[in-house]
């Protein structure tokens, strides 16, 4: 029933200026403790029975910040709980310049078959401004490692809407990224989040994001470039050659269940969303004690699930399946959301056929306004 797992490794050798995920500076002893705690959390939830799963995603933080030995411990812990060798999509996040061929070989050995590669931009100056520690040269060196270790399913992350980034800057990053001929790309616009260096700088007026027109133009450029190179958009921010869509990400957009292991990790289990404790010592203590390091759990009522099915599902270019919705909730989308659908169709933000409802190209630009329409009023349901 739960066929995906997200595993969070909250350690980094450096902290990016925009990052608001759960992360701590890497420290050998803390990481050792953490892996023990993580093991107990996973064993408590699924046991050591090598359960079959469709996707495993190890993210961070920086999973590759762990030492070789620790990486091996982590891989073993995961392999104890899940049948990694039979797992069709087993992804590790890796940051350029932060791993070598030896670590990569280890990942391969334990069944990892996909790498999400945090390139962000092809511009050393910009990388420095982002607080990243790598250079474009690191990217190319690691790409050779992927090739040698025969990792073909590699995805690259690209950022846009960055302070000081021009349309041209982004265009050259896209061109260079596409030139690598990889099967998958994700591209996110910068969000300036509280408790980050960027947030502080932005508040003080030291940095500003490009204006909305510019950012919209960058997004449209992204869509065009990907399309003209045969890399299809399958979600607002994700592009892939056919067959290389991230099954793990699709778990989220399909509103399916997933485990969330590790400090600050989020999971979705039948009927509830789970959030783990964030501070390392709290997480470690509780996970070692009883394997349940929960900060809290939120019950997902039917109305929540319905809303989420819509605002997550519409992110996919495939849209929301009418039949899938009806099978899951026993209700028809068209009757429940008649008024909203009429309005959004009039706006030409969504389109529908017999089977599905999905965003138009224009609707993609205004996703938040579209999604908001699917939050149900109190009197409904």
């Amino acid at each position, binding site marked *: 029933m739960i066929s995906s797992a997200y595993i969070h490794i909250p350690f980094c050798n450096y902290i990016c200026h925009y990052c608001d995920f759960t992360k701590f500076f890497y420290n050998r002893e803390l990481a050792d403790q953490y892996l023990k705690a993580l093991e107990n959390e996973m064993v408590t939830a699924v046991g050591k029975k090598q359960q079959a799963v469709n996707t495993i995603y190890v993210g961070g933080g920086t999973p590759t910040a762990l030492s070789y030995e620790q990486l091996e411990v982590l891989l073993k812990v995961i392999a104890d709980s899940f049948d990694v060798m039979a797992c069709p999509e087993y992804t590790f996040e890796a940051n350029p310049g932060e791993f070598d061929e030896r670590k990569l070989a280890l990942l391969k050995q334990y069944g990892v078959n996909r790498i999400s590669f945090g390139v962000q931009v092809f511009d050393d100056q910009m990388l420095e401004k982002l607080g990243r520690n790598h250079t474009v040269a690191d990217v190319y060196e690691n790409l050779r490692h992927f090739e040698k270790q025969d990792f073909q399913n590699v995805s690259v992350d690209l950022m846009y809407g960055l302070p000081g980034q021009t349309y041209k800057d982004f265009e050259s990053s896209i061109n260079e990224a596409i030139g690598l001929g990889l099967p998958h790309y994700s591209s996110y616009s910068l*969000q300036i989040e509280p408790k980050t260096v960027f947030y502080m700088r932005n508040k003080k007026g030291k940095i500003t994001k490009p204006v*909305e027109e510019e950012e919209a133009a960058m997004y449209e450029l992204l869509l065009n470039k990907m399309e003209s190179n045969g890399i299809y958009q399958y979600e607002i921010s994700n592009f892939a050659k056919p067959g290389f869509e991230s099954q793990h990400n699709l778990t989220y957009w399909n509103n399916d269940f997933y485990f969330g292991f590790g400090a600050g990790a989020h999971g979705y289990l039948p009927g509830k969303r789970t959030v783990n404790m964030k501070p390392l010592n709290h997480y470690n203590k509780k996970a070692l004690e009883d394997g349940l390091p929960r900060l809290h759990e939120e019950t997902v009522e039917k109305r929540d699930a319905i809303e989420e099915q819509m605002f997550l599902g519409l992110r996919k270019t495939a849209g929301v399946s009418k039949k899938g919705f009806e099978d899951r909730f026993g209700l028809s989308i068209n009757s429940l959301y008649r008024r909203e659908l009429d309005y959004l169709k009039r706006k030409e933000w969504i389109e529908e056929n017999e089977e599905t409802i999905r965003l138009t190209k224009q609707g993609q630009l205004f996703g938040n306004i579209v999604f908001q329409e699917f*939050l149900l009023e109190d009197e409904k349901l």
Partner: protein
Amino acid sequence: MSNNQIKQDNVRNFSIIAHIDHGKSTLADRILERTKALTQREMKEQFLDAMDLERERGITIKLNAVQLRYGAANGEDYLFHLIDTPGHVDFTYEVSRSLAACDGVLLVVDAAQGIEAQTLANLYLALDNDLEIIPVINKIDLPAADPERVTKELEDLLGVTKDEVIHASGKSGIGIDDILEAIVERVPAPEGEPEDPLKALIFDSLYDPYRGVIASISIKEGTVRVGQRIRMMQTEKEFEVTEIGVFNPKPTPKDSLTVGDVGYLTASIKNVSDSRVGDTITSAERPASEPLPGYKKMNPMVFCGIFPVDASNYNDLREALERLELNDSSLQYEAETSQALGFGFRCGFLGLLHMEIIQERIEREFGIDLITTAPSVIYEVELTDGETITVDNPSMMPDTQSVSEVREPFVKATIMVPNDYVGSVMEICQAKRGAFQDMQYLDDNRVNITYEIPLSEIVYDFFDQLKSQTKGYASFDYDLVGYRASNLVKMDILLNNDTIDALSFIVHRDFAYERGKAIANKLKDLIPRQQFEVPVQAAIGNKIVARSTIKAMRKNVLSKCYGGDISRKRKLLEKQKEGKKRMKMVGSVEVPQEAFMAVLEMDTDND
């Protein structure tokens, strides 16, 4: 503990004035303890009793005046009334009436901080009321205390000698005896004849749902008794006294109060507007010929429109205003309809602070989200047909063709400020169309400046500017001096080519272009991008004087993945939806609440 045995010569009525944080309440506590009004334990219990009552019955008991008994060094017993002044110094009038109930004040100054603007404002009120001033330097046991310097300040300011300044510490009890003896020796006993016609000053008035209005009174002449018919000399309303008493500190009913007594009175008064602060209570049978001096009917000077964000809250808003009016004789309101904002009320206030307090209370205590329009004053408009009308709502200003003259209220603004800031103050006053009247040096350092300024300029951001430009040192008071003709025009604001009545304002023609430009730019920033381009125009009559453009929204989609944190995505969407609800759909444009106050804030931005 009857006060009958204590003769009028041994009564002392005083108040404590101090800057916030200079230790007023600790000092008051020490005085309460030392006068043995109650033992410490009793005091706690008594106060708790009062609070429980408050909780159970919803009665608000405010200790406006505490009666204390003090055995002085000369062997005689004295009756003290310690009278509280309202916390908001901005309610200058209320403070002045509380002080009018006294014969002396303790001027408490922090030994480290020295004299501050707020203390000064109250001190001048005390001087106005011809009160004996006892300077007290408090917190002298603090490491940072500098009593020498503060004594010098007091000497310069009050012309007192070093010996007259009392050093004290409310915290450790130092100097409390000196203070009490000084009250006995320096504060004069109340004058007045118990047999003369009654004159009782109302210095506070509070509505209680069970007993009606409870008036705090100070008896200046004559005697008041339970059952007596009384008359309010200003409003000419008559009532029968149902209860009188003193706080010692719990409310203690008495049969009568006479000259020098300070206490409370109830008389089944339904509304505080019938028992106005500053009014004189006299006997209906044997009325005094003259009321006590200093009464001012506080007429609203500032008006604004108040509308519920959610139209269905209109009746709740009316109820809230009705409830607040019971306890606030200066609040006025009448129904108003705006094309842009729908049904609401045009409300009148004493000033900006009063306006803010009422708005906040409606939002907080009654849970109604409000949209308020920028404040306006009352204009007198002479029409070409000779008729004169008053306009308190800019959108109701008649067309220029039918107007022969517009008059606006002017005030005499009195600003007291340290020497160093005279330049800044004059600059602000000039920019606010002020006409210089006078400048006087109060001492080596302090200057009193008077200007005549249009009230409409004051209600904008005058006080804020004054405070920020003088680092809070300026104290400021104003009095209406009358109406004068001004070259005023109505400025209309158009959004997407529709005139938005709630955004109209009156402006001097010389400043019209500049203000129109400022507000068009401000609105461009305050109103979020819509799905289409929205022109913002400022117009006088048919003439557009300024324009800006709110560009169409181009992109609004969250791209980030958030590592499966769906709750966060949901919260963002919910917040966005909530924000949309707090916007007002005006014509085809969604306008946030702040935009309706934009007229107010633009001056600050121009600096």
